């Protein structure tokens, strides 16, 4: 419950008064949860008293006693800050009791009410992490020989940047279930992440081809093969990208790859059409805006190119917020003249 008190410390002014309500709130802020409960006991009944009593109980570890009041306050209080605090405490209680469904429901509501709130996002992250860990434990305990165990192990290795170990786990998974979709693709991807040596490129291509033999409509596998062919200056790359785009007309990366090849061929009109489609699909796609800017420039459409540069500049502005402030403090700031 330390976290709950920390939230309150940040948000409520603490000045000890003789009034038992204010005294109880101040004691709560000091972490004196038992004293806070004693003081709040003496305060006249009010929604605020009930809310802080519940918060103090929860902070003291007595979620059982606190939960119904927290739930009521979270649902009913018109005070936005009190609703945020009781929601956070409620989700923490549900998480402690391992009632994940209840905790997810509260956190989902909190995220919709306070979408940019760091405390809410932190609580959501903790909840997902705990649920992930518990589920993973169950998986290893109940289905240790499943290919899924190898697959999830490989994915974890990937996250850790241990690509050789990831590839080894994917191979074990394929050995157990050679017809499972995605395994060949993921193995190919791990090989590419491990190294771009010619050997790894060839091995990766083989895996992507294997994925396509299982699922001929896999646009991403087509795209990856296109990339490998492009690396080798193989003109067949264009067919792969075209097929990827035809399998998935909204596949932005494939459209972009095609557009670059059109640009290389000085077919600026075609490149522009492809890239305009991409930025329509993905207005925040910086790479596409950049390519479109270059395509307009090369086509002699200076005003349109300038327009894309403006879009790009706007997209690249650091979002204002705590992290940006953090960066500024670290030194990402304009130099002295």
């Amino acid at each position: 419950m330390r976290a709950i008190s920390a939230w309150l410390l940040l948000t409520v002014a603490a000045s000890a008064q003789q009034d038992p309500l204010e005294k109880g709130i101040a004691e709560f802020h000091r972490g004196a949860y038992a004293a806070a409960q004693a003081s709040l006991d003496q305060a006249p009944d009010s929604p605020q008293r009930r809310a802080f009593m519940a918060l103090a109980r929860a902070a003291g570890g007595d979620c059982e006693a606190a939960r119904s009041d927290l739930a009521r306050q979270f649902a009913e209080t018109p005070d936005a800050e009190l609703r945020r605090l009781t929601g956070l405490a409620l989700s923490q209680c549900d998480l402690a009791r391992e009632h994940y469904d209840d905790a997810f429901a509260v956190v989902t509501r909190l995220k919709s009410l306070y979408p940019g709130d760091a405390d809410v996002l932190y609580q959501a992250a903790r909840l997902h992490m705990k649920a992930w860990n518990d589920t993973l434990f169950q998986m290893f305990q109940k289905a240790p020989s499943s290919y899924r165990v190898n697959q999830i192990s490989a994915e974890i290795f990937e996250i850790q940047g241990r690509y050789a170990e990831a590839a080894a786990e994917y191979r074990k998974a394929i050995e157990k279930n050679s017809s499972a979709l995605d395994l060949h693709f993921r193995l190919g991807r791990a090989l590419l992440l491990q190294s771009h040596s010619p050997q790894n490129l060839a091995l990766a291509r083989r895996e992507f081809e294997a994925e396509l033999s299982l699922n001929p409509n896999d646009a991403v596998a087509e795209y990856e093969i296109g990339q490998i062919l492009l690396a080798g200056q193989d003109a067949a790359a264009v067919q792969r990208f075209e097929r990827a785009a035809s399998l998935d007309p909204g596949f932005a990366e494939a459209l972009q790859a095609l557009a670059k090849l059109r640009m290389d061929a000085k077919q600026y009109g075609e490149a522009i059409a492809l890239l305009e489609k991409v930025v329509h699909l993905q207005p925040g796609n910086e790479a596409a805006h950049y390519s479109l800017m270059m395509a307009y420039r090369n086509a002699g459409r200076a005003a349109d190119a300038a327009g894309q540069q403006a879009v790009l500049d706007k997209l690249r502005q650091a979002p204002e917020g705590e992290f940006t402030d953090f960066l500024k403090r670290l030194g990402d700031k304009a130099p002295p003249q």
Partner: protein
Amino acid sequence: MTRFEIILLLLPAACATAADFHVDFHNVAREAGLTLPFPNGGDRAKQYIIETTGSGAAFLDYDNDGLLDVFLVSGPGGTNRLYHNLGNGKFADVTKEMGLEHTGWGQGVCAGDFDNDGFTDLFVTYWGQNVLYRNREGHGFEDVTAKAGLRQDRTRYNSGCAFLDYDNDGHLDLFVANYLQFDFATTPKPGENAYCWYRDLPVACGPRGLPFDRNILYHNNGDGTFKDVSVVSGIAKPAHHYALGVLTGDFNHDGLTDIYVACDQTPSILYINRGDGTFVDEAPMRGTAFDDNGNALSGMGAAAADYDGDGWLDIFRSNFSDERETLYRNRGNGEFDDATLSAGMALNTRFVGWGCGFFDFDNDGWPDLLLVNGHVFPEVDRLGTDIHYKDRAILYHNNGKGKFLDISESAGPGILEKHSARGAAFGDFDNDGNVEVLVNNQNEPPSLLKQSGKPAGNWVTLKLVGVKSNRDAIGARVRLTAGGRTQAGEVRSGGSYLSQSDLRLHFGLGSAQRVDRVEIRWPSGVRQIAQVEKDLPINRVITLRETR
């Protein structure tokens, strides 16, 4: 795409072999007498970013004896050194007698005759005070930094530099890039914040997380002094860049020298000279700020040449590992396309590239390219991956059709030696028609890469002497016609990574037996055409003086 994230390949490809090329580079530094190491921070671990960026190398003929001498910049624990070319393949250390002993966090070096006395001067950049050395007619160097008005009012992390005559008044001005603001007291230690990690290793912090600084332009007053015109010229305006390598050139053919700056983890800068004493950064729209996905890479060094023979200067930039090198092809109007992939240069993504330069090693008339490598973090060796603190160089052969082939593996032991290399300078130190490469290796003796055999093709080297223009002819552009082809070259100070290459221009002639025409556009505006006589010998150095 919703399935899961796409791997954006860095697009390597199989290395070509060089069976058809008789290329055999050896490191002859030891035989040449270049045996002393040049310290630069930790060799097994580095605490601060300042240990990662040094230092540069230079080829210059300080005594006008027609032979290139060697200058190497050092970090603390050593001194910069000048080696005199004895003419027999050996060099003698003349640092002390020439007055060039200096310690500190030396970074870059550039050369130019700033006082037009006929002797090339030296400028050395530091974290700390830069130093301008005036060449006293080849008999010694005098530190004239203060006298010239170049002392700085605070400690700056100066990096690349170049002399240039941006206003074509006949006096060399000076551009100095600044990397970032650094001091030992406030910079976090490895692992202390999010910017102090690399692949789960605690490493020297930065550049991200460290304050930006801005670049500097000094105007030559013509009386031995300079004036800081950074703000009024617009040079100071780009504010969010970590600037390293400096490359000058007239990229848009307007007769004015522009400045390209390779920037680390931030968009690279292309200062376009507007001809009124001001510059504006037009890199994003001209296509030289980013890679072809619009991403800012970790630019280190930069080189320029007309690699495709269209008469326009193209740009190469070396970058960090897990990034492609970048080749920008000039479209003919000072606008560039990223040609890295189509030129076959997206091969090598495991290297951190530094010094780089175009040079025609086989004298076939097409500029080839060499870059030297070495990771910034010695700690990277603990990872056991294919990325190393010390690594080999990369040699690309230009096939004359817009493509480069990586022939490193078969280009001789000199190319394959592993060092944590930084600066690289290019020049024919023995005037045999083979261009050699001088490399400054961190905490090791330098490398001097030389081919064992004779040049495959004919060649000519032009030494330009300015009269109305600056004496070293920096900024002069040459179009040389031989064997039915016309090649372009430009005299340049600085370039590569914090380094100075030969101020003379080397041209491979292939099988051509004569030079038909040499056209020079001098910085003064004078256009000079040398109709070469039939019996003019090739395979030698020719001096061309500016006509009035």
